[in-house]
């Protein structure tokens, strides 16, 4: 505890760095995985290959990936950009299948009815498919959020500051309190992300929580 009381400004700064690496990566993962998932669900033939390829990305070991990315994207090795790209690759790999499942979970009869009353293909996506996919999609995003927050720590190995810096630094200098702080702060951040996502999910899908309740008594006026 003594270590923390002396070093808390550094911990706060690293927490901020950690946040600035994980939040953009999570956002990018969602923005990339959702359209791919939708395409995969609509065109199963292309989709199957796409989903397979995406899942394969997750099998790339982290360190080689961190070295390939600067070569591919022309970003400096020890930069936050490298880290955000790597995290996005893993996030997309984890999320595409769930995104495809999320669109697959939309009742086709509801979609067809929406088309039949005059929704254009675009409004079917924005007004019907996407909102109805949110519950399943959100479950996937929660997994990606927690995994991203913990993966950020790897950045410390290539010198990108995050809460992971506390782990490497603590190990090298033999300060257990520093390592413990790194672990606990990372977990706390992951839990915070998760809680925020759950709250966002509730706000986005008021209909989903109500649906499981008993139907209200009938009130026919005739």
């Amino acid at each position, binding site marked *: 505890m003594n270590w923390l009381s002396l070093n808390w400004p550094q911990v706060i700064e690293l927490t901020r760095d950690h946040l600035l690496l994980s939040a953009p990566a999570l956002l990018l993962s969602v923005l990339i995985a959702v359209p791919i998932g939708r395409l995969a669900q609509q065109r199963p033939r292309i989709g199957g290959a796409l989903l397979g390829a995406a899942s394969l990305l997750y099998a790339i070991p982290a360190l080689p990936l961190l070295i390939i990315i600067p070569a591919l994207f022309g970003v400096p090795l020890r930069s936050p950009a490298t880290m955000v790209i790597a995290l996005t690759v893993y996030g997309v790999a984890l999320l595409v299948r769930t995104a495809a499942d999320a669109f697959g979970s939309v009742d086709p009869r509801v979609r067809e009815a*929406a088309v039949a009353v005059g*929704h254009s293909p675009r409004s079917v996506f924005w007004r019907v498919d996407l909102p109805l996919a949110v519950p399943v999609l959100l479950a996937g995003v929660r997994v990606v959020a927690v995994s991203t927050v913990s993966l950020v720590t790897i950045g410390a190995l290539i010198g990108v500051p995050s809460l992971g810096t506390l782990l490497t630094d603590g190990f090298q200098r033999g300060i257990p309190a520093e390592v413990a702080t790194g672990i606990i702060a990372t977990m706390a951040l992951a839990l915070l992300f998760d809680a925020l996502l759950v709250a966002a999910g509730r706000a986005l899908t008021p209909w989903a929580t109500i649906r499981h309740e008993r139907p209200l008594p009938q009130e026919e006026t005739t």
Partner: protein
Amino acid sequence: MIEFETVSKTYPGQSVAVADFSLVVPSHRTVVLVGSSGSGKSTLLRTVNRMVEPTSGRVLIDDEDVRERDPVALRRSIGYVLQHGGLLPHRSVLDNIATVPVLKGTPKRRARTAASELLERVGLDPKIGRRYPGQLSGGQQQRVGVARALAADPNILLMDEPFGAVDPIMRRELQEELLRLQAELHKTIVFVTHDIDEAFLLGDEVVVLREGGVIAQRGTPAEILGAPADDFVRDFVGADRAERELHITTVDGRSIAVDGTGRPVGVLAP
């Protein structure tokens, strides 16, 4: 007026759903297509709003081929009611009813106000407007479905077994409600059902379909019941069923109608 001109539909890898179907649905009338499953009645209905494209033949609305129309605009100009309501579970009842006006660009508030009035029109309490479809009974959902179909004030209503999934008492109420609405609104209605009693109750004209969309008989309910064209129709309308065979007996000077099993079903009005 809706015209089917030798409409055929074959689904790939399956037998013919509909072959050479021709029919004229006059404006402001209710025409009921009735048949068992496999008669192609839903397929025919869905060619009108281009949810199904005929393999050959064409469908005309007021002398215009529906293929000339943009499918989205065409569908917005036609009211459509489905068996399971087809309401959007994530939208409130009012927003569901206001769907087509909002898609057409009516300001949301005005569309919602109009939707609230429509709720009353179909016999529902406007208070339920804020609920989600999942909180309504099956019968209420069907009424909301009818309100949604009426929201853009279309000339044509397509109804695909709209009351098939609700219990008999509710179905009867919904049928009466539709008759009342039609007496006020005079829409051109194409109604699909497998229930011959529903067809006779609602249809100005009834079209009995055999397998593959072949017309077995068309006419007013009285014509079909009075003179079934063949054994298929006779069997389908239950012309030989005991409750259809009424005769009159006189009890204490009053004429009582009695069905084939001898059960009294009513008194002749003097």
